[in-house]
């Protein structure tokens, strides 16, 4: 019990105080606490059985039972000033309801917002891509697809694709963004945006609009060169009444990795407006 309190106090001290204390730990221990990947974030959010953090706490501190509420608090960026009333309400809604909501990797309603840069008209330009994971119910496979694009320089008038629109499965030499692309911060996009024969595989054709076509048409005509993904924010809309955003905090601390940095109360009927304003999704 003492061990439980000690470990959780280290992890959640920032929630008690207005200003969180950054804890510097030896590399190995910090590695265990760090939320290293977004699917690890999802598993911790759900307090799933086989997460590395549970195995670490069991092995290192003989902690067998981990309270979901305590674990959820460690998923917040503790260096930010939070409205503790709002956070408590969120925790209550996630934990205390009869059917505690969980996140699933193949859910439709979470998005990766990628801030990217490329070369257009001999100048570096920033633009935003919104991606989701798309599951293939027939084969059990999945891939990441681009839902929408936002940038000032991208034409919003294109109605036809200059490139071939492929069909999945991609077994004839065309490629997709594999489901683990998030693990390398979508570095595969650099290669994908040069893979003109496979452009159709990277688009969510169910929701893509003129800006997506405009973006890919520029790439296809070599008028735009994709250079890198600079920043990633994940938007989670699955929890009823809430939206939270997750970003990566690379620092020497037990509170590091992929953490909740924004928590917003959004009624379900307002979520389409959120998607339109923040994720540039006009169809949903």
């Amino acid at each position: 019990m003492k061990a439980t309190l000690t470990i959780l106090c280290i992890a959640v001290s920032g929630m008690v105080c207005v200003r969180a204390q950054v804890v510097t730990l030896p590399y190995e221990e910090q590695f265990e606490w760090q939320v290293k990947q977004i699917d690890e974030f999802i598993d911790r959010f759900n307090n799933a059985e086989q997460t590395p953090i549970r195995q670490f706490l069991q092995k290192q501190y003989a902690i067998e039972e981990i309270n979901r509420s305590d674990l959820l608090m460690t998923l917040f960026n503790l260096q930010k000033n939070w409205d503790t009333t709002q956070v408590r309400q969120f925790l209550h809604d996630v934990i205390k309801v009869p059917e505690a909501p969980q996140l699933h990797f193949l859910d439709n309603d979470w998005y990766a917002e990628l801030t990217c840069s490329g070369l257009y008209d001999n100048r570096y330009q920033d633009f935003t891509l919104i991606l989701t994971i798309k599951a293939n119910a027939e084969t059990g496979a999945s891939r990441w697809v681009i839902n929408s694009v936002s940038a000032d320089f991208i034409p919003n008038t294109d109605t036809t694709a200059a490139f071939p629109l492929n069909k999945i499965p991609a077994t004839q030499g065309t490629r997709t963004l594999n489901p683990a692309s998030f693990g390398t911060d979508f570095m595969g996009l650099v290669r994908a945006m040069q893979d003109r024969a496979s452009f159709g595989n990277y688009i969510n054709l169910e929701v893509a609009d003129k800006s997506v076509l405009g973006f890919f048409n520029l790439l296809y005509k070599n008028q735009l060169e994709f250079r890198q993904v600079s920043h990633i924010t994940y938007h989670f809309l699955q929890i009823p009444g809430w939206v939270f955003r997750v970003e990566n905090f690379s620092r020497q601390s037990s509170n590091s990795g992929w953490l909740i940095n924004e928590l917003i109360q959004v009624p379900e009927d307002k979520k389409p407006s959120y998607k339109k304003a923040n994720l540039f999704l006009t169809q949903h």
Partner: protein
Amino acid sequence: MIRHTYLRYILVVTLLLTAFNFLYAQPTPKVVYTAKEPQQDNRQPEPNDNAYITFTEEQRQYFTDKAMQKSHDLGRYLRLISSKHEIEEDKLYAIREALQLFVSDSSRVEVSSVNNDLKQQFTIREYLERLRLLSYDKVELVWIKAQMVSRFRKGEDGRYYGIITAQQLFRGFLEDEVAYQDVTEKNIEVVLDRYLVFDEGKKKHRWDVFLSDISVQQTRIK
């Protein structure tokens, strides 16, 4: 008399063998990581050309262990390639062996720094060559910790994809002084792929794990 002579002979031979072993025996090889292999019959899933395969927990663990073993092997090769004390022939051999760990030569390494926003991508071969040509007198590359964080998930091409995250300490020395050091985090994409073998005259599909793209994030100066 004869028995005493015989016993003395045995004693002398034993002592000589012990001394020989003490002087010339190879040190016990350091086992970095060993994949625990499941029962021979259960190691490979049933062939299914329609591509949706469900791995048993034992099979998943086997391939996870194999992926970890290959990432540790990569760490060893990186140390060897970057070491000034190794001869060129051994470094070139290590590069060839390291490339065998990857699903293809077109696998890429993306390097980013905390000091600037620019990311650079190299093919794995380019990355290893750059490592070989580092100008430090001595390099220390220590694998702090590695973990298979993301389980295998099926891609549309029938392969399965997972992620290993590893932290590595890098120190470069010039004239015995530390000239540069940092801690880098490596996210290694691992691919579970099928290949065709002929076993007793029959074509069979077998699965193996390979490394793929790697993102390298410099996290902090130690």
